[in-house]
């Protein structure tokens, strides 16, 4: 039945088959066993704590299992041993209560120290408001005129296995967060809808984003580089698809980047003002609108506009898309509180909102023939 020979054959077979899986397709970090050290002083402390407790646990395990193994081998009935009859010992019980207790208290000291270090409330050099929403992050630099959304950049075709997956599959975004190295960066974390959690393993920063409440975390990055993390609290269907990417640049480079971004914001605002006086034609609206729809709306409302019954409403043939233009614009601009429909006022420009609403009112046989212009969107957004 089961004997040493059969067990041996079993394992050999397993090992022989194993190269079939993942042959030649392994990621360079494929078999990573341990936590990373990270790039901040705090992350190194956390790594040290992790190693310490892990080694303590491993040692305890080896000792206990070693004793057990000894017993299983040498205290077997088949060896003809007679069982002893001791069944209690107050001394021994006290010993193995006190010794673990002491080990734990010793362990608690460096842990508490790191916790206290993490609570550092000294003034920060850069403060960024991080807002989680379904299913993206928003970054707002408090002391500069820079704010933007950060969405997953991996193409849907990679996810649905039509294209080959890139090396940063699911860990890439269109606009990463950029912070300076060597400076204390403070994150003020909150959420627009459900609980999310902002996590960058290389910084050992993980903080929940609670709707209506603000949480604080900070980091000071020692090395420039790109650092990738993920949302760490179940937040709905695309919880696995809202990564965090942070680029840490040297302070001078960071300052340049900020200037560039502020310039981009300024020009975008001027452009938008200009657009308010212009009218786009149906062709342009439909083409821009379709592009926006596929990127920003199709995930829930589906490329064919039919939505998901019971979860995401259909736009094809919908009463609002056919008969209520102001309401339609309002829904896209402001979202619907208490549902998964977000407000797109900050995420899309007025031109893009005008285009996508036009598209929705004319695609899939909706055919209202209506157009929506940037100034119509402005009217809803700003009451003008």
């Amino acid at each position: 039945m089961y004997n040493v020979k059969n067990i041996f054959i079993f394992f050999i077979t397993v090992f022989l088959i194993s190269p079939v899986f993942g042959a030649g397709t392994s990621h360079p970090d494929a078999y990573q066993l341990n936590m990373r050290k990270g790039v901040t002083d705090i992350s190194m402390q956390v790594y040290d704590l992790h190693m310490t407790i892990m080694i303590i646990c491993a040692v305890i395990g080896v000792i206990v299992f070693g004793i057990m193994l000894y017993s299983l081998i040498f205290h077997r009935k088949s060896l003809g041993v007679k069982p002893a009859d001791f069944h209690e010992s107050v001394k021994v019980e006290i010993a193995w209560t006190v010794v673990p207790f002491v080990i734990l208290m010793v362990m608690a000291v460096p842990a508490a120290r790191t916790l206290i270090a993490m609570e550092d409330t000294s003034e920060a050099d850069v403060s960024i408001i991080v807002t989680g929403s379904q299913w993206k992050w928003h970054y707002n630099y408090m002391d500069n005129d820079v704010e933007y959304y950060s969405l997953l950049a991996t193409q849907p075709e990679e996810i649905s296995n039509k294209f080959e997956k890139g090396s940063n599959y699911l860990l890439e975004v269109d606009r990463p967060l950029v912070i300076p190295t060597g400076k204390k960066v403070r994150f003020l974390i909150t959420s627009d809808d459900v609980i999310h959690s902002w996590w960058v393993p290389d910084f050992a920063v993980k903080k929940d984003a609670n709707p209506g409440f603000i949480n604080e975390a900070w980091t000071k990055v020692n090395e420039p580089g790109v650092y990738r993390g993920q949302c760490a609290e179940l937040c709905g269907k695309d919880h696995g698809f809202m990564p965090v990417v942070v680029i840490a640049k040297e302070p001078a480079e960071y300052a340049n980047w900020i200037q560039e971004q502020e310039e981009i914001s300024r020009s975008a605002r001027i452009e938008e003002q200009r657009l308010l006086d212009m009218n786009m034609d149906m062709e342009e609206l439909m083409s821009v609108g379709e592009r926006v729809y596929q990127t920003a709306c199709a995930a829930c409302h589906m490329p064919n506009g039919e939505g998901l019954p019971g979860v995401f409403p259909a736009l094809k043939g919908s009463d609002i898309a056919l008969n209520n233009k102001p309401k339609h614009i309002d829904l896209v601009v402001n979202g619907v509180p208490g549902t998964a429909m977000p407000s797109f006022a900050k995420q899309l420009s007025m031109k893009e909102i005008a285009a996508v609403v036009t598209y929705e009112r004319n695609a899939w046989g909706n055919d209202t023939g209506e157009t929506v212009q940037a100034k119509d969107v402005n009217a809803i957004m700003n009451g003008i």
Partner: protein
Amino acid sequence: MSTVVEDIHHDDHHHHAPTGLKRWLNTTNHKDIGTLYLWFAFIMFLVGGAMAMVIRAELFQPGLQIVDPNFFNQMTTVHGLIMVFGAVMPAFTGLANWMVPLMIGAPDMALPRMNNWSFWILPFAFTILLSSLFLEGGGPNFGWTFYAPLSTTYSNDSTALFVFSVHIMGISSIMGAINVIVTIINMRAPGMTLMKMPLFVWTWLITAFLLIAVMPVLAGAVTMVLTDKFFGTSFFDAAGGGDPVMFQHIFWFFGHPEVYIMILPAFGIISQIVPTFSRKRLFGYASMVYATASIALLSFVVWAHHMFTTGMPLFGELFFMIATMLISVPTGVKVFNWVATMWRGAITFEIPMLFALAFIVLFTIGGLSGLMLAITPADFQYHDTYFVVAHFHYVLVTGAVFSIIAACYYWLPKWTGKMYNITLAKWHFWCSLISVNVLFFPMHFVGLAGMPRRIPDYALQFADFNQWISIGGFAFGLSQFIFLALLIKACKKEGEEVSAQVWDGAEGLEWEVPSPAPYHTFETPPVVK
């Protein structure tokens, strides 16, 4: 599995016991109800396991191949709910029903009719829960921990069905717990003082108190979710002055004692099995009782270790870190006591002992990873990753589930009067042991490498380990069908007859009644010296 032979074993009663469906629907007999619970739990284990197979099939490779993310979330949610409330808890309750009266020399449970209801509302509750999966929009998809506002504002209407089914499960558990306490306190045979009770009875007594203390809290949490969603309250809604983090406090105040509810009876089972097969009395009986009670008490003051990343003040984080670390002390004591029981015993390796030994090693691994999680700053890197998934599956699968399997292998001959097929049992053990470790051990690694929980798709560096994990998962799932085959053969009464004692070295009142145990036992209480 049935122990009733309708004619011969009916003692003083001059009526015939009902047969067929009526027997099972109306039974107030603790053995029958135990059997019902155990079969129900096993069926639920297979159903929940099927959901795990869907999860592991999707996670076999990066990319979305089999299910969409919303359905994946439903699978993870309902897998958790079924395993916790439909498999582990009813299985332990079934074992309590079967064995507690036998172990204390009582003729039945104290409240036999309530006992029947405690069981029969369960299939009803799970029908409600499982049917919600087939509704338009699907079933609950917010994790078994159903945090607000994902479960309130952002969920669909099937949440109501989820809430009602949890209410019913809670009522079942509370009634069962009341029954256990009253039985143990009131119906012990003369001479059986509390400190002479078998450990399995002690652990169930303490577990029953935990159940009564915390199931109402779950009922409260789930009701608040219902009212926030449907009746305009704002317990967990900041706009109305509420707080989503408060949900987590309330839930985990239930949740943490809940996981001890799921492990204390396991400790009791191991404490029965190890002495039998070591031919030696349990080491440190009194200390085992005190350790169990300390664990139960401490379990009330550690809940926020599930919430370290929510933005707790420093003193809160320190307190919960220390309290959580402390709870490992009495747990360690229990492990040491089991090893000391084996030490210088005369050990044999029957099937129940194999599972019990696997429990001791693997549960300890799970407990040690739990100790790592207790270290708050390190937890910031572990929280909501597969490291946590590895931890709780070690303590729940190789812990609680292995102990339930061990208990079945230990007591099955008493229930059926026959020894089951040892060959099948050995295959079941070795296949389960190997596959369960292939399944859960690599989860430690991907968790440390940064893979979050509850995601249907992952970055490429996690792919290789995930493939191994999925293979382990499929193998573990298949292995349970060996157990199913064994159980069916056992129910058909195949195998050699066994004596009342069954196992050389077994001690306790349950081994003094014939095998199979008669329908009514201890109608006259035995005297315990």
